[in-house]
């Protein structure tokens, strides 16, 4: 216990970023991620870093663009409406192949909505809320400890692939406190010979996302797609929890996955063979393991804090093999453990009858 400190999720993002060598943060205030800028405004100066509150989310993401172009590890964060405003900038980052970490501490939408937890920005994060064919690397932590791991991983992957990485969490995760251990991690810092640092002793570097000749633009897109394939090949992440003997597989991520874990415990106590497939990387979608996992179960049960978004990717992997059912809550509401365990029981009863 001695290395453990009690920390809010949002603060953990900040401390994790600092330990990952990030020295630049640009953001605009929004609930429910306020503890992050508060933390960094206090701690960045202590490590010689820059905390700058931008005039807007649009300015913030473009400051991130500049800092990334200049070769820095850079972080920004916001919540749903603010992330919508960043979509042009994110598309630019992806196209210019600039690394940056973007946290979306989601709240309930659409519109101004409310500040309670939601997962309704899945499509935006994963399919690309901005224009054009691009992908963010998207990670979805389920605990404060995992927030730390994901922020660090986000920086490392982002630098490795020269691609924006998004940490997708929700206000509950951002504001809850849990004991965490910062361990001893060394960031995988990369050389950035392409960065805009002043051209002393070399040719000038130009960082841009315009390729006016469509043949060049297509070539650029093909290059991006090849990179995405590589990421898809190498970076799928998931947790298979109590799935060994499971007949029912719950699929969920983030906060919602934790509720499901509690529900699965309840069901297991009743002898129901149910397990969890928890997405850790939302993009790349962990399709390889999910594909195999689907083969072994009788039914898939997707739980989201949305009207049903991630379920589409599950269905694409399933491709008609197994029945998929869904439960979603919206608008900042979360299902209770009982709610989920009851539904699992119902599925179990149905399956058993079918079988029996």
């Amino acid at each position, binding site marked *: 216990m001695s290395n453990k400190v*009690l920390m809010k999720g949002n603060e953990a993002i900040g401390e994790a970023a600092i330990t990952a060598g990030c020295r630049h943060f640009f953001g605009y205030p929004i609930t429910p991620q306020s503890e992050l800028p508060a933390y960094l405004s206090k701690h960045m100066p202590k490590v010689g870093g820059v905390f700058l509150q931008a005039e807007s989310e649009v300015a913030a993401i473009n400051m991130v663009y500049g800092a990334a172009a200049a070769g820095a590890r850079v972080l920004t964060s916001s919540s749903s409406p603010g992330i919508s405003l960043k979509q042009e900038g994110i598309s630019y980052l992806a196209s210019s192949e600039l690394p940056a970490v973007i946290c979306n501490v989601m709240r309930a939408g659409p519109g101004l909505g409310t500040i309670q937890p939601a997962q309704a920005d899945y499509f935006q994060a994963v399919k690309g809320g901005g224009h054009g064919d691009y992908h963010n690397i998207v990670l979805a932590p389920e605990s404060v400890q995992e927030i730390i791991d994901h922020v660090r991983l986000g920086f490392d992957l982002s630098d490795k692939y020269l691609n924006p990485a998004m940490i997708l969490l929700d206000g509950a995760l951002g504001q*809850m*406190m849990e*004991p965490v251990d910062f361990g001893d991690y060394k960031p995988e810092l990369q050389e950035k010979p392409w960065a805009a640092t002043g051209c002393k002793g070399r040719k000038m570097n130009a960082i841009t996302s315009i390729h006016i000749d469509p043949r060049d633009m297509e070539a650029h897109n093909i290059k991006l797609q090849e990179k995405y394939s590589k990421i898809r090949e190498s970076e799928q992440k998931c947790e298979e929890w109590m799935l060994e003997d499971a007949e029912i597989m719950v699929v969920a991520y983030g*906060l919602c996955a*934790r*509720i499901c874990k509690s529900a699965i415990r309840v069901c297991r106590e009743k002898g129901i063979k149910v397990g969890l497939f928890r997405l850790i990387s939302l993009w790349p979608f962990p399709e390889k393991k999910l594909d195999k996992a689907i083969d072994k179960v009788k039914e898939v049960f997707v739980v989201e804090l949305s009207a049903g978004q991630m379920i589409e990717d599950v269905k694409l992997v399933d491709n008609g093999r197994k029945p998929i059912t869904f439960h979603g809550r919206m608008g900042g509401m979360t299902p209770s*453990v*009982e709610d989920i365990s009851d539904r699992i029981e119902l599925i179990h009863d149905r399956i058993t009858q079918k079988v029996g």
Partner: protein
Amino acid sequence: MHEDLIIAGFGGQGVMSMGQMLAYAGLTEGKNVLWMPAYGPETRGGFANCTVIVSDMEIGSPIVSHPRSIIVMNLPSLDRFEDSVKPGGTLVVNTTLASRKVRRKDIDVILVPATEVATELGDLRAANMVALGAFLECKPMISFKAVKKTLQKVFANKKSVIPLNEKALERGAEIAREQRKARSAV
């Protein structure tokens, strides 16, 4: 051991810090702990509540619809949470600000005039400690010792307020003890 608790009241009543203190204390006792806040629309004066979970196991869902214990510091919180207490659980009510009768019969109810007691002790803001004392007396999810140690840490820069807070804790515990005794005497 797995305990969960919701503490609810107005913003400004110290329900959040009370919960954090419990979580800290739990951590020092080597438990898995989790603290989670929830706010209303108003910056100040709106509703505010937090969930605290202290457990020997890995903590799953941070969202607890039916916790074993609830502390309500005012009337709207009582209205909102009375039905949520798990049957057999504990409900601590700050009767100064939630004076109505509690309907539930299947739970353990502790009535503490926390705000009144705190005002008597000299600072209305210590009402949370009175309620906490009462709660811990009934449901020792954390030892008084650990909570007091945490108090020392939390108020390291403001040592002067520690005695008041300790007194408040103790008064709360006392009231709960008396109440239980009275009840068991009935």
